[in-house]
């Protein structure tokens, strides 16, 4: 590979990474299949509000009537707090619809891209409040 090829590849990788619907807070996210999508509806059982990423656990009833506890990765609590979220924004018992990208190697684990309440209202909105120079 010559330098020009590498530069073009670097630019392509950079573009792909920039466009990926993913957090880069501390890892590459190659553990998730970002081209696939999973959507579930269920009840929050636990919120793990710790660094480097918050996790939300949701009980989901599958086609066989079994309850499966899904794990959804969120950005870091620090990022979420700067967008107005708190550790109490989601609570056990909350009814949610979650979509995201599934883990490549494990079932029932995904990175969340959307969390809505039982009525379909987005729960993760808002931007970091900043003063721009």
């Amino acid at each position: 590979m010559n330098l020009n090829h590498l530069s073009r590849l670097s630019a392509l990788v950079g573009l792909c990474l920039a466009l990926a619907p993913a957090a880069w807070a501390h890892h590459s996210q190659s553990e998730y299949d970002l081209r696939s999508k999973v959507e579930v509806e269920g009840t929050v059982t636990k919120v793990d509000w710790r660094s480097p990423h918050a996790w939300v656990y949701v009980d989901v009833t599958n086609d066989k009537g079994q309850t499966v506890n899904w794990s959804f990765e969120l950005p870091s609590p620090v990022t979420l707090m700067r967008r107005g979220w708190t550790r109490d924004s989601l609570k056990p018992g909350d009814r949610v619809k979650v979509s995201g990208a599934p883990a490549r190697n494990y079932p029932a684990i995904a990175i969340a891209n959307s969390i809505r309440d039982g009525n379909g209202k987005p729960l993760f909105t808002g931007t970091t409040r900043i003063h721009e120079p």
Partner: protein
Amino acid sequence: MLTSKHPSPFTSTSPVRALWPATLLFVLATGPAVARAQWLNYPTPGIPRLASGAPDLKAPAPRTPEGKPDFSGMWFANVPSRDSCREKDCIQEERMAREQINLGITLKDGLPYTEWSREQMKTRRANGGREDPHSYCMPPNFPRAWTLPQHSRIVQTPSMMVVLHEFNAAYREVYLDGRPLPSNPNPTWNGYSTGHWEGDTLVIETSGIRDDMWLDIQGSPVTESARVTERLKRLSLGLMQIEIAVNDPKAYTRPWSVTIEMALQVDTQMLEEICMDNERDTKLYKK
């Protein structure tokens, strides 16, 4: 109802004593927010403000009693927030510097990698970036740390600049007392840094960096043979420019430099982010 459990890879400032009128207006305007979590929206004291109470970020750069530019303050890459996320789902949207992915993104031909570097990056890319020290919660090494999605705070004294970083509650020391760089030092994540003034520019020289450091997510290396020079200019109250120059003959065929901008973060606070507290993603890589 039956219950099935999938096997899991996881085993388990002090207060403001006097508020001037503009700040008071600001506080009143943001009253409900001020009462929110910690000091995330608490007014930063001692900075110039507009009549609206907003910080006057275009005001001149502050100076120390000795007349030098004062870089003290909380800093983050100068990237805007995403307005599109105010109404939509944008869980994973992050404010981030494009240099976080590729530090040489503004260079026409990219970074001038040596053959050794190209081989390193080929392996790192083939492994999906999972060898990135940042993924494994290792320290936020400078100069990479300027581009990370966590914030830095500079504390400047006449003889030392300290840079605190949210990720792993880390610190970096820059000696301003005229001492030389050490000879044959034990390599470290941040190396050893001294600074001197060239007019209003603070020039920071660093050597003694470990041999296996990454400069960005795509894995651009920096090694023990590197001499890194950072030239800091505070252009205004709200803006700092950092030229990062790297001379690393093991990793690059010639010296190169890039310039990044940092924006002052006011009316907020540093937030601790201890990565090892609950790191799980590296477990998802392995099976």
